[in-house]
């Protein structure tokens, strides 16, 4: 069968001040009609550049230096800008990562589908409106007529992404590009959007190019998976085979980095001594409009305990109050309820408590002061808690950073390196408990695996307990001893990891588990 999309030898350069950078290097791939090709790669692999090259919308400093892109019999690279605008949207649809930013905030949701129908199918405004409403029903949105008149900020993330999908499918394209369409969504919402995608695909027979950093996810939706690394496609295989026998080392690392619950990284059981106990912890954000609190939601009546050296996982969707809990334990927000450290009630957050309980934040860009060098960042906790600046090289070595990094500024480090500095800063105080608030959420899968390994190594050395907050159930099932499940600011489940899947978990926990599938071909072992 002739391929629908056929890319051969595509090479793309960006001209920058420091020279030419090759972002796509001799990329060849093809997508048959009705086929879905998954493209996996970490940040900087060239996935987005590939999508933009297909769409014919490259940055001004980009140069296509070789290769062809064919859609059916048409050479896309040879199209005029004008002709290309009749292909975009009409023959190739696209769904973006973040529906919160990819929809125009000042247009109603309805108009954003209608404008595509008017443009590409030549419908009148009235006919387009009716057609758009029926598309909203096809993407399983209730109250379609009402939703048409709403603005993006009045809809949930899942609803917005469905609208975006409707506007990509409505002109009946031959091919749809998906650029990480579930990454910005909550786990359960994302899983339902994926179900929708499968159904639409079956109904319309559309071909797809599904781009993601998540190998486990891509393997579930794609017929074939291509792995990209530094602008090259290094391997292209059936999903099952990629997992079973990856041909390349890099693919092997990616496969290994996919969190699998059955692959426990922590074997020991924590000591029985209770380290910290929290009772009836509540935080409420009143109307403090001036100090706009971030989207953190209040929490109420949380009670749990952490033992010495225990890893206590906390999962929940965005807005469930996970971060608020972290901030309450770190003494960053006013709370009610009692906290006991080794049986002693903590009335005010004094030195002893601050020393024992440290926190690492999600975004190292924000948590490392951009105007302090790494040595200054590490020197403060050392000074406060009886260390000396002579310990800085050791501290850096502990987190596998060369001691020369002491003189660097945060912006000279990669994301993973920054997070390791933040971890070093937390460990400078020799804490008993470290609160990890989504610390790997902004990192690539392979960097995440390395960071997790580092945390476990530090725990082996110091016996530190972790409160490990994440949205990734599979990840936390690899390392935690017990799990707290949060929803709408309350604790719905508190369960030992070993008990998961035995039917004793809460209904909501079961939904989360169902929405976090394990890699293809390995389901049976769950």
């Amino acid at each position, binding site marked *: 069968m002739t391929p629908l999309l056929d890319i051969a030898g595509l090479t793309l350069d960006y001209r920058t001040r420091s020279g030419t950078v090759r972002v796509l290097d001799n990329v060849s791939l093809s997508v048959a009609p009705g086929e879905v090709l998954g493209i996996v790669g970490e940040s900087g692999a060239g996935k987005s550049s590939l999508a933009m090259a297909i769409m014919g*919308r490259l940055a001004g400093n980009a140069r296509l230096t070789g290769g062809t892109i064919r859609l059916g019999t048409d050479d896309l690279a040879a199209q005029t800008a004008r002709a290309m605008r009749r292909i*975009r949207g009409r023959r190739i649809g*696209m769904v973006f990562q973040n529906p919160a930013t*990819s*929809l125009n*905030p*000042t247009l109603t949701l309805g108009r954003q589908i209608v404008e595509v129908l008017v443009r590409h199918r030549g419908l009148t405004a009235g006919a387009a409106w009716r057609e758009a409403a029926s598309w909203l029903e096809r993407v399983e949105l209730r109250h379609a007529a009402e939703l048409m008149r709403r*603005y993006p900020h009045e809809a949930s993330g899942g609803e917005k992404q469905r609208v975006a999908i409707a506007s990509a499918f409505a002109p009946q394209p031959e091919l749809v590009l998906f650029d990480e369409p579930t990454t910005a969504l909550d786990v359960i919402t994302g899983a339902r959007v994926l179900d929708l995608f499968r159904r639409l695909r079956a109904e319309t027979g559309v071909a797809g190019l599904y781009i993601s950093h998540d190998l486990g996810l891509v393997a579930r939706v794609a017929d074939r998976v291509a792995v990209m690394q530094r602008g090259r496609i290094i391997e292209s295989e059936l999903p099952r085979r990629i997992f079973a026998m990856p041909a390349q080392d890099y693919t092997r690392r990616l496969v290994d980095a996919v969190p699998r619950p059955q692959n426990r990284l922590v074997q020991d059981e924590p000591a029985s001594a209770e380290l910290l106990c929290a009772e009836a912890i509540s935080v409420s954000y009143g109307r403090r409009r001036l100090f706009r609190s971030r989207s953190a939601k209040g929490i109420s009546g949380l009670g749990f305990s952490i033992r010495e050296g225990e890893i206590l996982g906390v999962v929940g969707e965005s807005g469930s109050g996970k971060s608020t809990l972290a901030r309450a334990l770190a003494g960053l927000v006013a709370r009610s309820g009692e906290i006991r450290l080794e049986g002693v009630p903590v009335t005010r957050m004094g030195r002893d408590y601050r020393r024992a309980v440290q926190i690492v934040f999600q975004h190292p860009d924000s948590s490392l002061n951009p105007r302090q060098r790494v040595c200054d960042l590490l020197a403060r906790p050392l000074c406060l808690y009886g260390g000396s600046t002579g310990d800085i090289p050791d501290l850096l070595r502990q987190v596998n950073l060369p001691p020369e990094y002491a003189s660097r500024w945060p912006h000279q480090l990669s994301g993973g390196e920054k997070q390791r500095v933040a971890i070093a800063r937390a460990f400078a105080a020799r804490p008993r408990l470290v609160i990890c608030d989504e610390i790997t959420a902004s990192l690539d899968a392979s960097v995440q695996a390395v960071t997790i390994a580092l945390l476990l190594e530090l725990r082996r050395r110091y016996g530190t307990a972790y409160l490990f907050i994440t949205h990734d159930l599979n990840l936390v099932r690899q390392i935690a001893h017990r799990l707290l499940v949060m929803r709408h600011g309350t604790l719905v489940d508190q369960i030992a990891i070993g008990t998961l899947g035995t039917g004793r978990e809460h209904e909501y926990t079961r939904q989360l588990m169902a929405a976090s599938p394990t890699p293809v071909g390995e389901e049976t072992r769950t």
Partner: protein
Amino acid sequence: MSPAWLLRRLLLMAYTLLVVSILVFAITQILPADAAVTMLGQDATPAALAALRAKLGLADPVWLQFWHWFSAVLRGDFGISMRTGLPVGPTMLTALSRSLLLAVCSLSLMLVIAIPLGVLAALRQGRALDLAVGLISYLGISLPEFVTATLVLVVLADRLQWLPATGYVPPSEHLLDGIRHLVAPVLTVSLVLIAHVSRMMRSETIDVLASDYVLAADLKGLAPPTVLLRHVMRNALLPVISVVALDVGYLLGGIIVVEEIFAIPGIGRALLVAIQNRDLPAIQAGALIMAATYAVVNLLADIAYAVLDPRLRYG
């Protein structure tokens, strides 16, 4: 736009005017001026001065004087000019109407020029047109009105003889002549505004052009004019509305200078004359009316913003 929001906004405006009244009254109290001397002249007899002071209530405590003045203002009575002996309120309002003509013309000219200029500069970022617009806007924000006005006079009125030098002809009396007299002051006032707003429009447009939703609109294959008008301009214009409203404050200040130079009998010139003559009631009325104008414009801008930006509509 909920009623509660509107009510809060109106209360804020009332508070603004109260603060301005107190401030203006306080400053005029400190002004080294003796109202009685100003009205009767230097060679008035001490007895006559004392009698007038008593009549004006100048011996009363300051807060009582403020209350007398403020309650009169609330009834629309701004007092009698110490210089001309005429009621200040009507004089100032007539002057305001002439200034508003100048302000509205300048604002319109600014909008017509600055918005397209800013958008074009953003679309041609880094190219010759962008640099030219940048240069002009640097000049515009760096030349004070009195310099621009003088340069406009040198070139357009003196060298080229295209325009009358100074003076004011009400367009209602003689349309063509009135317009000819307005050209130079409008050009002067709008230059600064054009510079400022086009810079703002340029940076807003650049931000919006880099947004995901404009990329998405483009990748939906929409026609370029649709993308530009419906997706780019619609969003880039929003923040510019509030900047223009704030610029009205600057414009009102600029009007003082421009009216003085072009001899336009507007509120700016009336204020300047009042300040030079220590005509306290006139200063109070003029300053208050200017602040009220600014407050009303900002209220309107806030309402416009709320109507145009759906995210704020229920705020």
